[in-house]
């Protein structure tokens, strides 16, 4: 069960990263990026790294996404 979940997360990781690069809408791209870091966080928990997982949630998932959204709202939303 854990194995399957692990591989599923890897697939989500790949899919979300490729989608974030491919999509034209920057806001969607940034939101996909949160999915990306979300699955990374789960993987870190699987890999027994709660410290890194916490830091990833608050820094990549929280602050960086916030900064991205601020930037997009101040610039244009489309590529």
């Amino acid at each position, binding site marked *: 069960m854990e194995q399957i979940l692990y591989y599923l997360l890897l697939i989500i990781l790949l899919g979300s990263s490729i989608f974030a690069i491919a999509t034209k809408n920057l806001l969607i*791209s940034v939101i996909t990026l949160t999915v990306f870091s979300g699955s990374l966080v789960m993987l870190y928990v699987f890999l027994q790294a709660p410290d890194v997982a916490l830091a990833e949630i608050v820094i990549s998932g929280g602050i960086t996404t916030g*900064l991205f959204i601020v930037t997009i709202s101040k610039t244009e939303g489309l590529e």
Partner: protein
Amino acid sequence: MELTYLVIAILICVGLYAIASKRNLLKIVIGINILESAVIFLFVFSSYRPGGTVPIISGNHELFVDPVPQALALTAIVIGASTTALMLGLVIELYKRYDTLNITEIRKMRG
């Protein structure tokens, strides 16, 4: 376990491709973000030992995962976030000056 390394390599590839080929400043920043995340994932994954537990030594566990790459990964996350923030600040300023996010147009406007 080779599979995870493959995934990390593909993620690095995606990030590098975005940095090299995209013309939109924000897309480049997103590419850098993916690249850095992939490297941090590499740090965490390389610290894993099958059967190991969290390196908090309180119970009677015997095998722990390697705490050093995790500590280094934390440092790397913070440094990466700082550079990303600086980049986004630059993107905002560049947009104010040139009214576009396209890197070729910015270059054209400067002549």
